C-alpha cells in the first residue's frame, strides 16, 4: 500500500510539472563599467571616465584674460583677449582613449593617452583609477629665441594618476590627480619639473545641474612663468563652477585664477593670484558622439 502511494505521488508530481513551462530565468551577466563622473574630464582635469571604443569627444574651452573686477568696460572679461583650447578625443578601446588638443598659449599642441586601470565595485565606496601620459609641443617660437620649432626644448612631458570616487548615491564625486610635469619652463637653461596634487569635488543636484570646485596646489618643483612676456611666479590654481549637462553636451561655466588650458601649462600653476582678486570667467563645452 505504501509503495502504491509513493508511485501515485510521483506520477501526480510529474503530471503537475509537465503542465507548466520549464524555462528558467538566467541572471543578467553583463557587467557594466563603473561610471562615476559624468564626463571624461572636468574643466581642467581628467576624470577616470573613458570613451567607448570608436566614440569621439570634442572640446572647446575659453579662459578670458581680463579680470571680472574690470567691470562693464571689459564686459567682465568677455571682451578678451582669450586663451582658447580645441581638442578631439577618440576611444581606442573601451578603456583607452587618445586626445589631441591645441591651445593658443604658445601654440601648445598636446597629445595624451588615458588608460583605465582599476575599478573597485562597492555600493558605498566605489572607485576607479586611471593613468594619463602626455606630450606637449610648443610650436610658437617667440622673437629673440634662437631655436627651431621642432627643437627638443619645446617639448614637455607629463603623467597623471587619477583617483575618482562617487559617494552618497552618486551625488558627490571626488577626484585626486597627482601630476608630474617635466620641462615646466621651456626656455629654462636647466630643465625644470613640477609636481602638483590636483583635487576636485563635484556635487550633482540632478541629471542636468552640478556644482564643482577644483584646486591644484604645486607641491614641489617649478612654479614660475611659462611665457617670456610673463613676470612673477605662478600660483595655486582654483576654479569654481557649474556644469550643465544636456543630451550629449556638457557645459562648464566657471570663475578661475588660471587662464592656462593645456595640461603642460595648467600644471605649472595659475597666472594670477586669487588674493589679487584676479578672478576670470571661463567656459568649456564637451560634445560626445
Amino acid at each position: 500500500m505504501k509503495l502504491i502511494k509513493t508511485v501515485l505521488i510521483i506520477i501526480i508530481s510529474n503530471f503537475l510539472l509537465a503542465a507548466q513551462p520549464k524555462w528558467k530565468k538566467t541572471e543578467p551577466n553583463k557587467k557594466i563599467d563603473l561610471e562615476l563622473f559624468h564626463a571624461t574630464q572636468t574643466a581642467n582635469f581628467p576624470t577616470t571616465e573613458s570613451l567607448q571604443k570608436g566614440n569621439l569627444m570634442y572640446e572647446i574651452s575659453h579662459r578670458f584674460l581680463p579680470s571680472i573686477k574690470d567691470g562693464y568696460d571689459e564686459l567682465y572679461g568677455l571682451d578678451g583677449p582669450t586663451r582658447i583650447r580645441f581638442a578631439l578625443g577618440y576611444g581606442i578601446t573601451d578603456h583607452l582613449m587618445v586626445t589631441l588638443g591645441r591651445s593658443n598659449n604658445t601654440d601648445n599642441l598636446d597629445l595624451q593617452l588615458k588608460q583605465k586601470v582599476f575599478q573597485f565595485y562597492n555600493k558605498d565606496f566605489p572607485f576607479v583609477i586611471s593613468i594619463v601620459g602626455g606630450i606637449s609641443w610648443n610650436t610658437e617660437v617667440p622673437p629673440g629665441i634662437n631655436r627651431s620649432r621642432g627643437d627638443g626644448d619645446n617639448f614637455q612631458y607629463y603623467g597623471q594618476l587619477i583617483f575618482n570616487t562617487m559617494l552618497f548615491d552618486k551625488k558627490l564625486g571626488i577626484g585626486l590627480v597627482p601630476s608630474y610635469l617635466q620641462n615646466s619652463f621651456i626656455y629654462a637653461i636647466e630643465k625644470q619639473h613640477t609636481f602638483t596634487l590636483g583635487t576636485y569635488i563635484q556635487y550633482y543636484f540632478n541629471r542636468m545641474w552640478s556644482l564643482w570646485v577644483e584646486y591644484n596646489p604645486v607641491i614641489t618643483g617649478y612654479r614660475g612663468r611659462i611665457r617670456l612676456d610673463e613676470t612673477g611666479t605662478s600660483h595655486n590654481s582654483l576654479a569654481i563652477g557649474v556644469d550643465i549637462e544636456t543630451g550629449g553636451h556638457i557645459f562648464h561655466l566657471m570663475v578661475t585664477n588660471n587662464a592656462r588650458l593645456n595640461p603642460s601649462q595648467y600644471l605649472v600653476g595659475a597666472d594670477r593670484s586669487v588674493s589679487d582678486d584676479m578672478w576670470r570667467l571661463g567656459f568649456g563645452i564637451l560634445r560626445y558622439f
Partner: protein
Amino acid sequence: MRLLKIILFLFLFISLTFADEWHVKKDSDNLVKFTSSTTVLDFDGTTSNIDGYIYWEGKKIFERKIELYFEVDLNTVETGIGKRDRDMREDVLETQKWQTTYFKGTIKNVKKNDSTNNYSVKVLGKMFIHGVEKELEIPGVIKIKNGIMNVQTKFSIYLKDFNIEAPSLLAFIKVAQEIKLDLNFNLEKTREKDN
C-alpha cells in the same frame, strides 16, 4: 484495486497530455531594436539579449493554455554612443532599479497564412518597464521552418505610460514620447509531448 485503477487512469491521462515549449535561441541573430525620434533626427538602440519562451498544451499548434514570456536585459542595449547609453541606463530607464523589461501574456488570435507554416497572431499581455506594468495588445508574425520558430513584431510604446520622462537628445531638444519597437528573434523547441 480501486487505487490501481486510478493510477492506470492517470497514466492514460498523462499519456494524452501534449505540451510544446520553445525557448529563445540565444546563439541566433536575435534583434531587439527601439527607434526614438526628435524634431531633428532619429536614433536606434539595439540588443540581441532577449530570453524567454512560448508554451502551449495540446496536439495542435497554439491549441490551448498558451503562455509566452520574453525579457530583455536593458543594460545590454546600445545606441552607438557610450555617453548616450549611460544616460539612458542611469537617467531614463534607471536600470540600477529595474534592469529587465519583460512581456508576459498569451496569444489571443491565431491565423494561419495559406499552406505555409506562417501565423499572424495577436498577443495580449503585460509589459513591464521602469517599474510599471501595462497591458498591451501586440500584432506579430510567427514562422516555423526547419525546427526554428521565428517571431517578428513591430509596435510602439509611449514613455509617459511607464512614468519615464522624455530625455533631451541634443541640447534642449526633447525625445518624442513614442518609442517604436522592432523585434525579430528565434526560438527552438525544447520539448514536445513530455509524457
